[in-house]
């Protein structure tokens, strides 16, 4: 590595941060979608689907993401299914996040009073309308804090994808230190700085969203 000064490291970290942000936001989006659909399936106790969702959640919450990524990236090509490290990262993180989001949103749904849903039934409201107008808005506003935590967790979990050569922040940091041990301290500082630059604004945006949802949904 022909890096002469600490300043030459900055563009490397900027690019790596961009990779982390891109993989994280995409995975959060898919994880949220999976979580929403699966928690609704759990709520309606759809027989077969329910067992599948439980097994899925149990599997992804109780195995290390490192191993999951390793398997998808190096294992699946053995049966001729091959993804590049970007696609592979998004798949693995979306599935892990989906498991966590399912749990979070489902506990939000369970917190909705059953009396309320019963009176909706007595009004003749269809299941679809109950989901759209009553269940989803309330479940999200109840579980928004957990959704925030999961999103921050997923963003940090992008670093586990270094094992499948995703050029994200920690991967780059290790690569540089491997070649230039004298840069250990500036690299460590830049790594921490990169995460703070990503996660602090993200936390801020989520807390804004949280306040907004709570305000809109429950009248301040």
């Amino acid at each position, binding site marked *: 590595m022909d890096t002469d000064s600490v300043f030459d490291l900055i563009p490397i970290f900027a690019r790596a941060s961009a990779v982390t942000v891109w993989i994280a936001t995409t995975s959060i989006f898919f994880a949220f979608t999976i979580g929403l659909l699966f928690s609704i399936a759990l709520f309606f106790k759809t027989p077969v689907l329910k067992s599948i969702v439980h097994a899925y959640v149990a599997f992804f919450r109780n195995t290390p993401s490192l191993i999951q990524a390793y398997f998808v990236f190096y294992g699946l090509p053995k049966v001729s299914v091959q993804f590049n490290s970007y696609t592979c990262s998004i798949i693995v993180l979306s599935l892990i996040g989906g498991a966590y989001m399912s749990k979070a949103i489902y506990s939000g749904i369970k917190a909705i009073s059953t*009396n309320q849903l019963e009176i909706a039934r*007595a*009004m*003749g*409201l269809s299941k679809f309308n109950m989901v759209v107008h009553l269940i989803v808005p309330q479940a999200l506003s109840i579980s928004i804090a957990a959704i925030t935590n999961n999103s921050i967790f997923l963003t940090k979990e992008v670093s586990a994808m270094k094992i499948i050569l995703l050029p994200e922040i920690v991967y780059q940091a290790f690569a540089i230190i491997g070649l230039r041990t004298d840069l250990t301290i500036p690299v460590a500082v830049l790594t921490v700085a990169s995460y703070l630059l990503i996660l602090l604004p993200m936390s801020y945006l989520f807390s804004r969203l949280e306040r907004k949802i709570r305000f809109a949904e429950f009248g301040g």
Partner: protein
Amino acid sequence: MHLTIRNLKKSFHSNVVLDDINLDIKQGEVTVIMGRSGCGKSTLLRCMNGLEQIDAGEIYLHDTLITKRGSNDAHWVDIRKRIGMVSQSYDLFPHMNVLKNMILGPMKVEKRSKKEAVQDAVRLLERVGLSDKITAYPRELSGGQKQRVAICRALCMHPEIILFDEVTAALDPAMVREVLDVIRSLQNQGLTLIVVTHEMEFAEKVADQIVFMDNGKIVEISTPRQFFYSPQTVEARRFLNLPIDDAILK
């Protein structure tokens, strides 16, 4: 006859909750159902709009059998449009303001236009003295106000029958009055009201017939005057804390 119940039976597992219920409810009348806690009053109401599946017997709305075997929620939607329900716990949707609570059913179930639904809601709120609460959220309302909104929400659907299940049970006395006044005001509008309540004074003044239940059975159906002043059964006399004379015991 508006609502007719014939030989209705309902059990939860081995617990027989409704045992051979027969009841005729006339259009435009107020039927008050009374009885001890656990005697099956709520379950009876819940059978009328299909929230509980009955085990045997029939319920007719006018002459239409509404309790066909194996009928699903879709079948009940049409009936639920015609039979409103208000419960003890108000059950307003906490994430919606008063107006949205009221127009959800008309718009989504009856497919009426928003404009029409809003006009209706505004008119109803005015009638119960809550015009200034139209944009308030449920948690900003008192219990009595919540219950009046819940009644308006049921009225928005233009039901023919409204089931009231102990709607004043959770309210303190001052608020009981304001809610009962609203129910009384519905009496003269051709609405058929079926009211489960422990409010004796209200029952006496407003009811056309009193249905007294005990242990899953209807033991007495009578006029308020007869029920409160000369009840025919031991169970009713006990319930009303009246002396039980030997003549009846025989």
